[in-house]
Structure formats: C-alpha cells, structure tokens
C-alpha cells in the first residue's frame, strides 16, 4: 500500500529567501556583477602585468594614445594606465574592506553596548558619537593623518575612525528594534541564557541594516581614500591609487583627458556597484520598506 504524502512545500531558509528577492532586482544584480568583475580584476591583475611595471617609469613610451599594447594608453611617465587602474582596484578594494571591518568592529561594540545596556551608558556613548558626527568625516580623517603622518596604515585608521559613529548608530538602533520584540521576551521567559539570546536571537535579526551599512561603507571609504590621495594626504605616488592617478593626470588633462577619465570611471564604477548592491540588499532584507 502506498502512502500518499502531501508534497511538502520546500522550506526556504532566510538566506535563500533574501537571495531570491535580491536576484529579482535587476539593478542590484548589475551592481553585483560589476563588483564581482572588479574583485576578480583586483585579485588576478598580476596575470596581465607585474606591479613593477605599474610603478617604474618608462619615459620613451610616455603619453601614448590607446593601442593594442596599451589599451588605455600610457601616462606622462610611460606607465600603462590599464595596469595601474587594475592595481588601483586592488588597493581601493582591500583598504575599503579592511576599513569596513575595523569600523564595523569598533562601531558594533559601541552600538551594542549602548543598545543593550541603555540608560546612562547609552546616553554617554551616543552623545560622544554625536560630537564625532558633527565633525565632517573628511576633516576628521585629515586631522588624524595630520597628527600621525601619511602612510597606508594611518590612512586606514583615519578613514575607519571617521566611519565608526555611523556604524555605532546603525547597530544601536538595530539592536533596540529587536530588543523590543515579543520573541525576545518569550526567549527570556523560557529561561534562555543571556549570551544565547544575544547570539541566537538579537544578532541574526539585527544583521540586516548592519550588512547594508557595511556595503555602503566600503563605497564611502573608496571615495574618502581617493579624495585624501587626490590632495596628497593619502596614498602617495608612485603607488597606483585612483585618487593619486587623478591628481597626477590633472596637469595633463587638457591634451590627454584619458589620464583622468580612466581612474575617475573606475572610482565611479566601484562606488556605484556597491551602492546598487547596498540598495538591493536593503530591499531584499526588508521587503516592507520597498514601495
């Protein structure tokens, strides 16, 4: 005898559901594809040329127009612009990611402490964050670079510190929203340990806005780093950073506009793809918000 079983509707996990909603968003998918290509480019750039060729001068070949050997031409020091742009992706993306991790860690600690303990702790921490937010991010970063001196690490620290308040705010409000929910109360009533409540119930449910903020944060960092490098306070030449490439190309842009168009387009593409992913994630994580 055969047992007739009602075909169970396949249960989708939360992640699958989010992915299902995300991939229906064409713009977000476009962003994801562009960003993936950028990451691949940053990882595998050494196939196309070594780092030495991106920083050593080759004066006989300076300011060449695009050709088969140099698809985007060469700059005023004879270096291939495409290779430099690709190594620039490596720098921007890795610094962007590291900055995000640093500011996320610090911001989460502060935001979580403020949200979880509430009261005086919350008040004090958030007032301090408000003061930090009152200082324009660029200026805060400049002041840190001014105090500690130039260099990759100091730049990373400077951009990370200036992004902490934004994270702290997002984490705090995410935790506050979750804390007020009935299921937290229910878990507590069941006698669940505090650490389990935080790890199993609060954090997973507060993750959404934090992930979105993290994505947008990388985009903002890429902009910030290129801005500081552009005025000569970030990563200095000959390192192929997009901002310093723009600053180097500035003097020549009248006759050789490709010197600034390529790195500028790289920044715009990276930032736009991350913004699109961030917006897409926001809609996918919380479908109620979408109109």
């Amino acid at each position: 005898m055969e047992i007739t079983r009602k075909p169970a509707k396949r249960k989708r996990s939360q992640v699958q559901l989010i992915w299902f909603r995300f991939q229906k968003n064409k713009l977000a998918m476009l962003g994801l594809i562009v960003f993936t290509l950028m990451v691949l480019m940053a990882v595998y750039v050494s196939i196309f040329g070594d780092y030495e060729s991106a920083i050593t001068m080759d004066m006989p070949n300076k300011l060449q127009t695009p050709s088969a050997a140099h698809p985007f031409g060469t700059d005023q020091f004879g270096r291939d612009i495409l290779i430099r742009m690709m190594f620039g992706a490596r720098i921007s993306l890795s610094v962007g990611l590291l900055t995000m991790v640093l500011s996320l860690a610090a911001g989460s600690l502060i935001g979580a402490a403020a949200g979880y303990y509430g009261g005086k702790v919350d008040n004090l921490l958030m007032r301090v964050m408000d003061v930090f937010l009152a200082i324009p991010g660029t200026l805060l970063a400049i002041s840190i670079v001014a105090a500690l001196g130039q260099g990759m690490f100091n730049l990373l620290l400077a951009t990370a510190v200036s992004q902490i308040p934004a994270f702290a705010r997002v984490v705090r409000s995410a935790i506050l929203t979750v804390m007020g929910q009935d299921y937290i109360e229910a878990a507590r009533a069941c006698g669940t340990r505090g650490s389990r409540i935080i790890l199993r119930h609060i954090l997973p449910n507060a993750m959404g806005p934090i992930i979105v903020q993290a994505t947008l944060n990388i985009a903002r960092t890429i902009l910030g780093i290129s801005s500081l490098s552009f005025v000569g306070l970030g990563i200095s030449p000959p390192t192929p950073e997009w901002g310093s490439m723009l600053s180097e190309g500035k003097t020549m842009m009248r006759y050789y506009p490709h010197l600034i168009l390529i790195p500028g387009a790289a920044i715009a593409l990276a930032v736009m793809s991350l913004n699109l992913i961030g917006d897409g994630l926001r809609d996918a994580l919380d479908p109620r918000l979408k109109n």
Partner: protein
Amino acid sequence: MLRYILKRLLMMIPVILGISFIIFTIMSLTPGDPARLILGEDAPAEDVVKLRMELGLDDPFPTRFARYIANALRGDFGTSYRTRQPVFKEIFSRLPTTFMIAFFGILIAVTIGLPIGIISAVKQYSLIDTVSTIAAMLLTAMPGFFVGMLLILLCALKLGILPATGIATWKHFIMPSLAVASVTMATFIRMTRSTMLEVIRQDYVRTARAKGASKPLIVFRHCLRNALLPIVTVIGMNFAHQLGGTVMIEAVFAIPGLGSHMVTAVRQKDTPVVMASIIFVAVVAGLMNLIVDILYTYIDPRVKTQYTKR
C-alpha cells in the same frame, strides 16, 4: 520661539567643546616637539626648554586644553609654526571664500535637485524620472573633485566659456559650486522623489483630489509641505559634508580657501593651523545645522509646540 533658539544655542556649547576636545586630543598625538619646530633644528637646547616653559607644553593635558579653549574664546588660536603669524587672522580671511562655495553649492543643489525630484515623483516611471534617477545614481558615485575636473575639461578647455582657476570674478565661482553641489544634488533628487512618493499615497492627498483641488495645489500645498521636513534635515547635514568636500574642490580649481590652507598646513606639520581650521569648519557646520533646525520650526509647527509647552 526665542526660548527654543536660546535652548538650542546652549546645547551647541557642549558640542563645540566636544569637537574641540576630540581635535585637540588627536592633534596632540603628533610626534615631535612644537618648541623645536618653532625655533628650528639648530636652536640651542636651553632656548627650546625656555620656549617649552613659556608655551606651557609641559603642563598636564587638561591644563593645556583649558588654556587652549580660554585663548580661543578671546580669538587667539595660537601662532603658526611656519609663518609665525596669528592663526586666526589667516583663517578668518580665507573662511568667506570656502563658505561661499559651500553655500552656493547648497543653493544650486536645492534649486536644481528639488524640482527634479518633485517632477520625478509626480510623473513616476516617465522618461524624466528614469533619466534623473540614472543621473542621480551616477552623480552619487562620482567624487565631487572628479566632477570638477570634468567641468573644467568641458566648460573651460573645450568650450572656453568659464575660467578654470582662481576666484577673481563671480564666473569663477560657478564651476566650483557646481562640483561641490553634485553629490548633494543627487541626494536631494533621490530624497525628494522618495518622500514625495510616500506623501502622494497618503489619504489626505486622495481626499484633496476627490474634492477637486487643482493638481499644482495638491502638489505644492499638500504634498511638498509635508515632504519638505526630511529634505530640510538633509540640507543641514549636507552643508557640513560640503564644507569638508570643498577641501578637494579648492585643490582642483586652485582656490585660496580654508581647505587648501589646511592641506598645506598638514603637509608642513603646522599643527595650530590644522587644529584651528578644523575646529572652525566644524563649528560653522554646527551653526548651520542649528539654523536649519530653527527653519524646521517654521515648516513644521509641531516641532515648535513641542518646545514651547515645556
């Protein structure tokens, strides 16, 4: 109303003190001896010690900070290491240029961004909507200084209609202000569009329409009035960002403003100048936020009653 403004002004004091404290702390991490920097490398050691005593560099941190604030209140932000001139004078002479660029930037962003945002929302999914959404997306992704370079390339080098660098005439301010405005304008377009779309779906708008109110009346009286609130908040926040952004714009257009002054000072390790410039800009940004908040009460009477009740 006066009480509200006074209250807000009083609330500014701890914020300004906090800003100064943070910047002062960061800048005091600078390695090197200021007395040595002022006197030069070959100055005799006893002179350095004497100057250290005079400047009170050996005092504990709280004393130094309190003295800095006390002097700053009297308009004395110290002496530049490089020029040996009072810091305040130089900053004050450069502030108007920077402020003007940031202010015109906001003005441009509002006058262009707001109408486009409104049209986008009223004619959702139309051609104008699509084009402006894409334009806003592009502008948000491009750093202002890159937009500035593109403007120079187009308007100054190709068309030759605007001067590329300097601040001699009003024409010189057009491109820098546009460049500063670019990101903010994109934000305004997006904000206006989304808040207007939210408001348009409200019941009272449907009621107004049912009553037979004319379309412009509905859009401006019923929708815009309510949609303005979040937008005004964003205007205030963006002014602060723009003041930070002018640093890069001044570098593009070779403008002798506060930003370029600051960058030079950072390169030459001229700590007093850097510190004072940043504190100045942050305080101006804070004051702008305050002004916007006061404007807020005129747009939304609910905010005012909240404060007059107490």
